[in-house]
């Protein structure tokens, strides 16, 4: 589903290279965890996959379902099924949450040549999904993410993911700022989306989230490269021994 080949990328504004020859393959149905110390390029990778303009790809390619997505803007990538659950969801005053959800759903459907949802159908979907995620309906009446607690913001991200039904889900430190109950709810939300034709990339610092969202593969990112890949036992190793050993071996 996703093939990243020798990717090099830098911050557009000052030219700082963050990703330095990254290779990664994620198959349909797979849950891949990406771990790594601070500053290794994890969040940058998620932004680059989503198409954020602040980063420039200087070398290599990203293939999604066999096609390069480098020339697509963020909205096209989203409509093709790539979804990034943000580490820090953005507050947008003045944009009503329900209106935002409806526009996003329908714009994606339009892009794919599908019929727009009727209002009752839309509302039914939102109600069902938000009930599963234990989201208070009052939250949806507020402007997008405005005044949401950290946990509410993360749940709202998963709600968007559930509604948009992407094929490639990227979770950027979705566990940060969540208490254990909220973590379980969010993990259940993600697990409910696991399917043979959907891939999930979980970016995290900690093993904790991976107890709830059990990965098929684990990749360690360091200085913009994947320096070690393995199965879920690699995450346990890291938890026990830290990154030092692996980094030492790689260097």
């Amino acid at each position, binding site marked *: 589903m996703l093939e990243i080949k020798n990717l090099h990328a830098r911050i557009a504004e000052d030219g700082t290279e963050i990703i330095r020859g990254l290779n990664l393959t994620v198959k349909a149905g797979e849950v891949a965890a990406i771990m790594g110390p601070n500053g290794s390029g994890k969040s940058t990778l998620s932004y680059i996959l*989503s198409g954020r303009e602040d980063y420039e790809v200087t070398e290599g390619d990203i293939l999604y379902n066999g096609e390069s997505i480098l020339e697509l803007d963020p909205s096209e990538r989203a409509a093709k099924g790539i979804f990034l659950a943000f580490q820090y969801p953005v507050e947008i005053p*003045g*944009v009503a949450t329900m209106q935002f959800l409806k526009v*996003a759903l329908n714009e994606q459907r339009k892009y794919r040549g599908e019929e727009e949802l009727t209002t009752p159908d839309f509302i039914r979907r939102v109600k069902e999904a938000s009930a599963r995620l234990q989201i208070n309906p009052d939250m949806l009446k507020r*402007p997008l993410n405005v005044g949401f607690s950290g946990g509410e913001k993360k749940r709202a991200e998963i709600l968007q993911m559930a509604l948009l039904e992407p094929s490639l889900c990227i979770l950027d430190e979705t566990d940060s700022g969540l208490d254990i109950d909220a973590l379980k709810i969010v993990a259940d939300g993600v697990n409910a989306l696991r399917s043979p034709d959907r891939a999930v990339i979980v970016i995290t610092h900690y093993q904790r989230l991976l107890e709830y969202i059990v990965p098929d593969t684990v990749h360690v990112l360091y200085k913009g490269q994947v320096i070690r890949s393995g199965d879920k036992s690699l995450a346990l190793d890291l938890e026990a021994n830290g990154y030092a050993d692996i980094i030492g071996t790689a260097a």
Partner: protein
Amino acid sequence: MNIQTAITMTTAETALVDAYTTQLGDLPGDGAVLSARDALLNALKTEGLPTRRIESWHYTDLRALLRSVPAFDSTAFAEGVDPLVEDSTVLRIINGKASVSGVPDGIHVRRYGDSLVDGVAAADLVERGSDDAIGRINGAFVRDGFEIEIPEDTELARPLELQLVQSAGQSHSRLPVTFGANSKAVVIERHLSTNDAPSLVSIVSDLIVDDGADITWIILQQQGASDNHLGQINFDLGADAKLKLFVINAGGKLVRQEVHGVTTGEDSDFQMRGINLLGGDSHTDVTFTLGHDVPNTTSIEVIRNVLFDRAKGVFQGQIRVAPDAQKTDARMACNTLLLSDDADFSAKPELEIFADDVQCGHGATVIDLNPTHLYYLQARGIPEGKARGMLVNAFVDEIVEELEDEALIEHLETIIAAWLDKHA
């Protein structure tokens, strides 16, 4: 004052002076009204329309900008439209002619034309100062309007819509309104045009908000792209009184809306929210002065501007705090979204503070859309153009949402969305 030799009159000035001569026999009023009109017209004639050398008109050189004025057109025809909010009480002024019908019990309404005829109105027809071009033009030509009184302790269950529809020519109207003590009302002053023909509309509203009254007044200006609109609203705020004024400009070619107020009762509160949606080659000026004349009064003004094309916008805001007006709390903000390199906005905030124990602040910003907001919306599959539109809408909808009436909010947001769709 500038020392000037006799001015050479511009086309517009000549047209106004000539129109006065031809209209004179037809303008309502007794002797006192007539001499008040004469005085105003004479001042206009001797001093001409204000230029940029007059401080309060510095960014809106009326003499240069008002290139021509359409002739009075007594044959112009227009019809009223449905009120903005269902079930509102509607009073219409169609092409300058007011009609009183369907006024619910408890509101006293009189045609202003009648007050001119019997001379009661003569005292109103004075200029605010030597820079009061709107007062002069309006006072010289005023023909009709409404004199409205909401008695004390009266709460209007439904909004009162004052609907001014202009199809062509000129109209000059006045709205003296008294809100009695502890009254409560929502008033919508709505200006519409029915076609593309140029027009000149002037409107002067004089509000007295008595002690404890709680009033929302919305000026919704949606005139045509070749219309000139000169508006002035004056208010006097009594003790414990609240006035929320919304000024929404979404039309017109040359627009000047003046707001002049004084707080004369303690613990009164004034709130102004402005939305200027500016496009094409229009020029729109909102000029505001507020005198905090007594202690313990508060005011907040927030103006949001969105500019497209070659539009020009102006906001002048002056807050004066009198020497004994201690504990005044006054804040003013003007935020502008410039969406075209050829558009231009001038903001001039002024604080004149003569008391020492007050809180006053002002801020003016010119911004572009927040790139992080834009990215977030796009990352959910919303194409850039649509995402931009949503953010521009959000920038002004935030202001509208401060209103209490859900139906009113919805209708205003629809008007804003339609305007933005047309111009973006």
